[in-house]
């Protein structure tokens, strides 16, 4: 049976993950999408971290969180570099506008 604090943290992590994913799909600004991605990464990290509670030393879950933090940061950095390139090329960060300009 899960402890109450584990349940709270897992629920928060899952909620943040879905909030981030939903916000990525809704967002009309690429910068906001990257921020939403960061929120999703936060949620995933929190849920992964909380999943290791109550099974002795939670080394595996912590190792996965280390991996997730560093991979998430790398992805975000590349995303930001792509945003700069897109802005230089199209002069806007609105995905709909960029799609229209590409045609």
């Amino acid at each position, binding site marked *: 049976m899960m402890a*109450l*604090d584990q349940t709270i943290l897992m629920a928060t992590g899952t909620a943040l993950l879905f909030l981030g994913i939903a916000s990525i799909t809704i967002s009309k600004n690429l910068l*906001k999408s990257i921020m939403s991605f960061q929120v999703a990464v936060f949620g995933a990290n929190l849920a992964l*971290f909380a999943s290791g509670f109550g099974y002795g030393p939670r080394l595996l879950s912590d190792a996965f969180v280390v991996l997730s933090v560093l991979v998430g940061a790398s992805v975000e*950095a590349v995303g930001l570099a792509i945003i700069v390139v897109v802005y230089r090329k199209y002069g806007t960060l609105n995905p709909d506008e960029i799609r229209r300009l590409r045609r």
Partner: protein
Amino acid sequence: MESELVALLISGALFVTVAVSLLSTKVSNSLIALFYASIVLGIGFTVYGDGLLGLLTMITFAGAISVLLLSVVLITGESKLDLGARRVALGAIPLAAAIGGISLLTVFSGQSGGLATSDSSLAVLNFLWTLRPWDLLILIVVFAGSMVAIVSLLGREE
């Protein structure tokens, strides 16, 4: 009981900061709220006995990524970075202070219930180095790849 209280506080603070970040119409406000969210997450990891993760989260997200986001905001000029975020900052400061205070209290009182009283950072590092070296190798490859991609993208002429 204290461990549940800390979990609730961390969750509440995370929800507040993330909600402010996602709902704000100004990119500068979102950035500041996201910075606070990273700090809260780092404090949460530290309170639950993993200082390494807390430090890593704060260094990468609150440090590096926030600065990177700020520089991209300045390059693209997407947001006028005025002091309009003062209210957000003022609202988040007491929240962060409360979390920090309770966290310190639970760590130093030694009556932390479900919370860990000892730091497991060294054990995690040892575990990674001895039993999961492939993960570290993958990390290095991903990091090196991302750095090469960033240099290539930013060095491109118009």
